């Protein structure tokens, strides 16, 4: 079965490569010129120059992130230490009577000590057991806890990159999302995060920017929160990390 699938995919790929030549030559012909095979010179790339100069002070960055994230319906709290962050999460869990909490399998999040802080709650760590059905664990979770790679002040966005220990489902399927952001990871512009993906490297499969709770205005322009993704989103900015 698996061999059969491999063969089939190989066939598809072969067919596609042949088709690609024909397809691209067709485009060049329409453009009335031979195929372009060298990387074209570009007079400009990315955002306007003046924008690249735009840089906020640390206090302004934090302030702007909070304003934008809250305007989109999210919450921003600050914590001096991981222990403070942990007690914030514990109190939210108690308030919501959460039964299942799922966190990414990251050292910093382990240091939150949620297992000890929430003895009544089933706290699981993403992907630490290959045989577990992790999608189902994420779907049943009331709270998902993630470590954001960056927070972008100007757009009020969290940047989350997937990896073995950082599942995409943890920030997507639970009802409530908590993102931990080290204070030093707050940047001014979206471009500061995006540009590093242009460096030669293997990118993570999923790069997700999250700017508040899931929303829709599809029914009579009436704003609805929590349509498919988490309806409640907390960002906790931790000073000493």
């Amino acid at each position, binding site marked *: 079965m698996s061999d059969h699938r491999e063969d*089939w*995919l190989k066939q*598809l*790929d072969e067919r*596609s490569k042949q*088709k*690609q030549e*024909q*397809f*691209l030559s*067709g485009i*060049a012909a*329409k*453009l*009335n010129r031979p*195929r*372009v095979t*060298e*990387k*074209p010179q*570009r*007079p400009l790339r*990315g955002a*306007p120059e003046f924008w690249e100069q735009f840089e906020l002070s640390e206090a302004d960055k934090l302030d702007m992130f909070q304003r934008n994230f809250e305007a*989109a319906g999210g919450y921003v709290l600050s914590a001096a230490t991981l222990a403070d962050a942990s007690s914030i999460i514990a109190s939210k869990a108690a308030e919501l009577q959460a039964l299942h909490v799922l966190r990414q399998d990251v050292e910093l999040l382990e240091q939150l000590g949620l297992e000890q802080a929430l003895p009544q709650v089933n706290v699981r760590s993403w*992907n630490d057991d290959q045989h577990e059905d*992790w*999608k*189902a664990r*994420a*779907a049943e979770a009331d709270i998902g806890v993630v470590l954001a790679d960056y927070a972008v002040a100007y*757009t009020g966005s969290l940047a989350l990159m997937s990896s*073995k220990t950082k*599942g*995409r*489902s943890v920030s997507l399927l639970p009802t409530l999302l908590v993102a931990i952001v080290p204070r030093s990871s707050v940047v001014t512009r979206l471009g500061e995060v*995006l540009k590093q993906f*242009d460096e030669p490297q293997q*990118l*993570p*499969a*999923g*790069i*997700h*920017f999250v*700017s508040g709770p*899931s*929303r*829709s205005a*599809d*029914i*009579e*322009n*009436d704003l*609805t929160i*929590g*349509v*498919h*993704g*988490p309806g409640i989103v907390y960002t906790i900015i931790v000073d000493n990390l």
Partner: protein
Amino acid sequence: MSTQQTELKGTVKERAELALNNDFLRQAVRFTTERLRSGKLKAAEEHGNWDEWRERGRQIRLHTIAHLDYYLGEFANNARENGVHVHFAETAQEAISIGLEIAKAKQAKSAVKSKSMVTEEIHLNQALQSIDCEAIETDLGEYIIQLANETPSHIIIPAIHKNRYQIAELLSEDAGETLPPETSVLAGYVRKKLREKFLQADIGVTGCNFAIAETGSIVLFENEGNARMVSTVPKTQITFMGMERIIPSWADLEVMATLLPRSATGQKLTVYMSGITGPRRAEDGDGPEEMHIIILDNGRSLQLGDPEFQELLNCIRCGACLNACPVYRHIGGHAYGGTYSGPIGAVLTPALQKNVAEWDDIANASSLCGACYEACPVKIPLHDMLVSLRRRKVEAGHDNALERIGMKGFATVMSSVKVYHSALKLGKIGQKAVVRDGGIRVKIGPLKGWNSYRVAPSISKQLFREQYSELRSELGQQAKEADPAVAARMQQWLTGRDGGASHE
């Protein structure tokens, strides 16, 4: 659940009349477009330097399309490196048959879909249904439209034409119980219902807002989280993309991410912006195991090398031109009769199908006011394109014989001062029989079309031409030299107008 609606039913005028008779539709479209439009204007102003960003967006799109063969090849090769199976389809049929081949190989029973105009364009849902694979739209608005067996009437808000009572009725039928017409209850029902569908689905189908050539990534913008679901939960992901969706780099994405959400809804960024680079890595705990990208032409290449229409491929599908268009705001999306509505649809639909004759009436559903161009974040001259379409229609001989004769007569009269003058004099006498309250209202002969909706003005008793010599001598006494500073500024402005940013 057919969504077939590209067959033109009647003329744009007949479809518009249907829309104009629907009070709710008219009010809802006006309200929604106004909300989106003012949101956009506010966001653009708050961001600042909007025209510089628009120009930057335009330059990026122009450059990419001018070198599309290179960037598309680069994208395909890099996506393959990431483990994606890339496919090229010249026609809708080809795209469908590739999609179905994949679905059959997976023995797929259901596919969950996030919003994609391309899949609307190729009628993917019916095709999947034909092999007993249930196709489920998961965007809230799209799900409602699918239940109603209709097509989206707005790129961004597909169910703009439905009120919550109608929506409650549709969802109640779907639920098998009566749901109250309350937004939160209705949305809650859809959340629960679709959760199950996401978790059961064999295939996730997405569109593609942008594809990044240098890394082979696709980028999706959305607010609900359904595109993330579709690209995270099912084992197989199929992404359909128009071949023009390419941008070179992530740095360029910052410009698009600045222009698209602000232009579409006035947001600084959509709630989710996802860059997906291949299927899950071996060590990952989630994400699709297998990922396909189907790159579609379907008439897009007809625009390449056509100086009047190539810029159409710069479109980033934000819907700002719909919200700005005085015609769209009155008649709504369905009156346009195609997958794409509003000014962009009026040009794109005939352009993609190359059958100008059949779609010509849509090009006429525009007042050529240029509001679409003003609103466009990548400065596509849509109003010029509409004029070109009309011209091509006439050149192809699809014009109105009566209009042609009329225009000839007009040309004869206008090209001679004497004839024009006598015609005016004759008209002044002749109109006496039909002028009422200073206007002409009879709906006969050549006046029928105009007077069905308006009142034709009568010829004035005292003609401007007759007063002109008098006026000129009066002006001659008053006229003074223009302020030299003003004159210089105007001259400078005139010169600057020719030196605008040029196309590559």
